[in-house]
């Protein structure tokens, strides 16, 4: 039994495995399958100030070892989250991360103010959602816009602040550095990669929004590179994700510089993938005679 415990932004993670935003709801459904309190943390579905119905049309499309989604941030809104869903998440004895999206800077600021007084452990500022028409990802493309956004949020945010980067950013190292300079406590990446599928018989894009976000094993090598670049560019800790499906994948991200990792699409492939990953992490460390996972963090 190696030590999998990690301190991340002043919070104790019993292991570095966190369920990724948008793939785990608020934990409720997966807790019917296994005790989600065994996870290091859970990142909530992306929240917006006002509730959202999300996108019309097809929302999911499988690709070779990948998944495209165009959910469009369907969520109950920050206020409902604070009065209802957070209580569900809080009962699980794991870190609760509130993933916050927005269309305007004001949306982010009001959302953060509301979350300041809640019981969330960490705010994950989502400046990278590709599936909403305006805003969302726009904040995550240009480093100067991201800087201004994160700086304004930082000034009022009283929770540990993790900024979730988009792989669609113009330059990942510049984006990472800009967010650090603006006062982010940590970075998480990657969100989904902007992508497209076409129905050749209908002669139109599969998705009403034309483009959708690609995740799953297909994106892993790209995500790994970006996590490595970010970790090299900043001193703050990094939470890595993108296609992680096994303990081996998780170890790669940790060696590339991630202190903790998130698992998204793999939850769909096998409902208790996160538990498998925790077990495989432990087995790998034992087999290599490593006593503490931190010994291999960022060694590449």
């Amino acid at each position, binding site marked *: 039994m190696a030590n999998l415990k990690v301190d991340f932004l002043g919070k104790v993670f019993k292991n570095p495995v966190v369920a990724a935003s948008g*793939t785990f709801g608020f934990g409720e*459904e997966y807790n019917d399958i296994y005790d989600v309190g065994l996870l290091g943390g859970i990142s909530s579905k992306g929240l917006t100030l006002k509730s959202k119905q999300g996108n019309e049309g097809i929302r999911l499309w499988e690709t070779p*070892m990948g*998944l495209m989604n165009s*959910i469009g941030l369907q969520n109950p809104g920050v206020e409902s989250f604070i009065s209802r869903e957070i209580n569900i998440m809080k009962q699980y004895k794991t870190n609760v991360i509130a993933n916050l999206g927005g269309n305007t800077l004001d949306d982010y600021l009001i959302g953060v103010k509301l979350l300041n007084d809640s019981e969330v452990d960490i705010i994950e500022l989502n400046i990278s959602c590709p599936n909403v028409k305006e805003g969302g990802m726009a904040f995550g493309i240009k480093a100067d816009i991201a800087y201004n956004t994160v700086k304004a949020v930082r000034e009022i945010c009283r929770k540990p602040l993790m900024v979730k980067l988009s792989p669609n950013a113009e330059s990942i190292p510049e984006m990472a550095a800009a967010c650090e300079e603006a006062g982010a406590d940590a970075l998480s990446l990657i969100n989904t990669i902007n992508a497209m599928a076409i129905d050749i018989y209908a002669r139109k894009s599969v998705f009403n929004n034309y483009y959708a976000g690609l995740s799953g094993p297909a994106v892993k090598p790209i995500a790994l590179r970006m996590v490595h670049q970010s970790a090299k560019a900043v001193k703050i800790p990094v939470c890595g994700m993108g296609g992680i499906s096994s303990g081996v994948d998780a170890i790669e991200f940790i060696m590339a510089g991630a202190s903790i990792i998130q698992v998204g*699409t793999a939850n*769909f492939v096998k409902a208790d993938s996160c538990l498998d990953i925790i077990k495989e992490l432990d087995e790998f460390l034992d087999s290599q005679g490593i006593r503490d996972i931190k010994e291999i963090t960022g060694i590449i």
Partner: protein
Amino acid sequence: MMKNDMSKIIENKHICDNIFELVVLSDIVPLPGQFYMIKGLNGDYLLPRPISVHNYQDGKLRLLYRVSGHGTDQISRMKVNDNIQVLGPLGNGFDIALLNGKIAIVGGGIGIAPLLYLMKNIESKKPDVYLGFKDETFCLEGFGPNRNELIVVTEDGNTGHKGYVTDFINVKDYDIVITCGPEIMMEKIIRACLEKNVEVYASMEKRMACGVGACLGCVINTKNGNKRVCKDGPVFNGTDLTV
């Protein structure tokens, strides 16, 4: 109760055309209308596929599916004794207690899959069964023997009546109509029922990823906002649906 398990395949047989039946052991008794997320360990696809309970008896879970793409094709290639990933039973299923009076069951194509197990559960209520197919019919024998009436319709008239199943039912004759099948068929049935004030339940289908209600990938618009087919459904009351 829901279970996430690795099960051994007891049978995985070709029924006809592109229709297959997968049989695994399970100690959980599902409700009619529920489904399982199934993924073989073979092949290079990612997501489990939702497959309806066709029957359950003596610990044997029978899942009827149509090969409609790469994932189901890979599942159809799995052999007896292979391990297969089984998550379920999922979804709400039919509320048998609500099904009283004169009942019609209307199925089309692979949509007949959940209706056999439903039929077994309400046999004593002697529902009439209407089944529509394109050309080849399958799994008809299961719908006996206690039925009131079995009306089979094929588009080419090869078996039973010729035409569309929707042309052979007069929903006014029933207190409750239950339907599962192609979207156009269900829409027609639901509309007719709503017009005539006949209670109607439809089992819906949608592309899924998680199958448990977490990803919001399978929602349909209802009069009460978006509902998840996998968790709030797949069975919906027609009055909630926007058709």
